[in-house]
Every structure is written in structure tokens, then in C-alpha cells.
């Protein structure tokens, strides 16, 4: 099982994402945004950070990187893709996921351990959780406020596209407490919190985040 982790100029959490992949039992494969070689990976993680310094809009320039265009094509054919934080912003900017991430309502960078509720335990990246299960993982962002038009939000809620929701306090003013969403087929997931920072007792507030990376093993094996 090979899971690619794409590094952009300004990525910060690619090493932690690769580590989480390894701890889950898969082989992490380092990918470089400017190339077209996806190195035969079975799934892809877009990590957190500040690609291109968040210039223009967070994730906007990275979303036009050569490799991201390849990822969009492969995702539309069913390849599982997980976007974490900046990776979520990239997936929204690339049009793979609906909505957009904007400046936090309180204008502060927020860094804390965050309680989340898994709303969809049937996606490729969340199948090791139970629907309604609550987990605690770090959240750290300045532009994490999920927004979409009221009509779009209604549609997404109706289709069950909210995969993860903030509970016990909303860290950034995200509409309807949305922490993460899924694509229509449940194979592309994006979320602002950082499951890759909660995979070991030594360094995380929990090991609750590991489930994202173990879920994908089963999704790829059974595909």
C-alpha cells in the first residue's frame, strides 16, 4: 500500500503526515508538487502548511500546481484523496470539494486541541470510526472558517456531505460548525483539523487521528 504525500513550497506537515501513514501500516511516498509523476500511489494526502505563503488566497496557487491537476483527474476516477488544513484549502480551490475556507471570524490564529464529531463513518478516510463518534485532535489555522452560500450549505447538509463537525466550541466561525466535508463518492475528504498530529501518545493529545490513516488501508484493499 503506497500513500503519496505531496510537498509544496511552504508545506509544514508533510513529514508528520508521512509518519502517520507509516504508523498506520502503509508506505509513505514523497511527491513534489511541480512534477507529474504520482509514482503509482494508491491514495494521496495533501498536507498542512502555508503553500506559497497563502498568497492570493490560502491554497489558491498550490491548486494550480502541475501535480494537483493530475490529482484532480485521478480523484474524479476514484483515487482517494485526503486534504488536511492547507490541503483542504487546496482541494476547495481546485474545485474537488465544495465551499471555501476564509479568514477566521475572530481574526486570530487558533491553535488548540479540538473535539470533533465524525458525521460520516462511511468515507474512504473515516471508516474506522463510528458515526457520531467524538475524537480530539489539534486544530491550528488562521483561515479555517468554512463558508458556502446558504443554498449550497442546505444542499450539502441534505446530501450528507459534512464529514466532520466541531463540537465543544467552534474554533474559527465555520458555518454550521463544519470541520470537514466529503466529495460525492466519499473518496475525497478535506478537513481543517490535524489528525496526523494525533497518532502517538508522546506527541499528540490522543491517538484519535490514526483512524483516518488506517481507514484508507481498508478502502484501498477492498477497492
Amino acid at each position, binding site marked *: 500500500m503506497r500513500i503519496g504525500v505531496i510537498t509544496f513550497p511552504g508545506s509544514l506537515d508533510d513529514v508528520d503526515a508521512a509518519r502517520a501513514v507509516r504508523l498506520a501500516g502503509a508506505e509513505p511516498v514523497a511527491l513534489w508538487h511541480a512534477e507529474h509523476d504520482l509514482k503509482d500511489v494508491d491514495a494521496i494526502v495533501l498536507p498542512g502548511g502555508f503553500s506559497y505563503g497563502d498568497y*492570493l*488566497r490560502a491554497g*489558491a496557487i498550490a491548486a*494550480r500546481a502541475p501535480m494537483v491537476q493530475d490529482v484532480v483527474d485521478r480523484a474524479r476516477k476514484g483515487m482517494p484523496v485526503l486534504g488536511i488544513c492547507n490541503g483542504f484549502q487546496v482541494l*476547495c*480551490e481546485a474545485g474537488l470539494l*465544495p*465551499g*471555501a475556507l*476564509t*479568514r*477566521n*471570524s*475572530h*481574526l486570530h490564529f487558533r491553535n488548540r486541541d479540538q473535539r470533533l464529531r465524525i458525521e460520516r463513518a462511511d468515507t474512504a478516510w473515516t471508516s474506522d470510526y463510528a458515526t457520531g463518534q467524538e475524537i480530539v485532535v489539534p486544530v491550528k489555522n488562521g483561515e479555517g472558517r468554512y*463558508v*458556502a*452560500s*446558504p443554498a449550497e450549505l442546505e444542499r450539502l447538509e441534505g446530501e450528507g456531505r459534512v464529514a466532520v463537525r466541531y463540537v465543544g466550541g467552534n474554533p474559527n*466561525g465555520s458555518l454550521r460548525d463544519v470541520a470537514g466535508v466529503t466529495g460525492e463518492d466519499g473518496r475525497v475528504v478535506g478537513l481543517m483539523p490535524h489528525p496526523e498530529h494525533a497518532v502517538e501518545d508522546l506527541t499528540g493529545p490522543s491517538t484519535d487521528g490514526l483512524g483516518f490513516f488506517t481507514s484508507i488501508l481498508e478502502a484501498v484493499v477492498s477497492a
Partner: protein
Amino acid sequence: MPQVVVDVVLKPEISDPQGQAVLGALGRLGHTQVTGVRQGKHFVLDVEGTPDEAELRQIAETLLANPVIEDVELHLSGV
């Protein structure tokens, strides 16, 4: 060299906490005549030759602005 100006603002239904912070500062400074602030982006593009409006509109609508949350205005005047 011709210049094309592109203005990008958040759609009315998207809240603008930065604009609200500016409005708060204006209130503290006593500028009570200002009752609302929306912050946006202003791009000035230097264009070689005769500007291709269709291409420039595509640039504005697909890269300079995110149509999910932003409205965009293209100003070709003065070209």
C-alpha cells in the same frame, strides 16, 4: 503598456471580519459617518499588445477571484 484593473470583493452574503475590524477602528476614531466596510483586493495587470478581454475575464474569474465566495469586476477603461 496597457493596464487592466481587476477588483475582487467578497460576495454580500459572505461575512468580512477584516472589514468589520476596520469599521470598529473607525468608530473608535470617531468617524461615525462610515457605517460599513468591505475589504477586497485590487489587481493591476500590465498587458502586452491589445488586451484580450475574454482571456482577461477568465484570468479574473478563475484565478484572481474564487467565484465561490467572491465577486470580480474587470476594468478595461483607459486602455
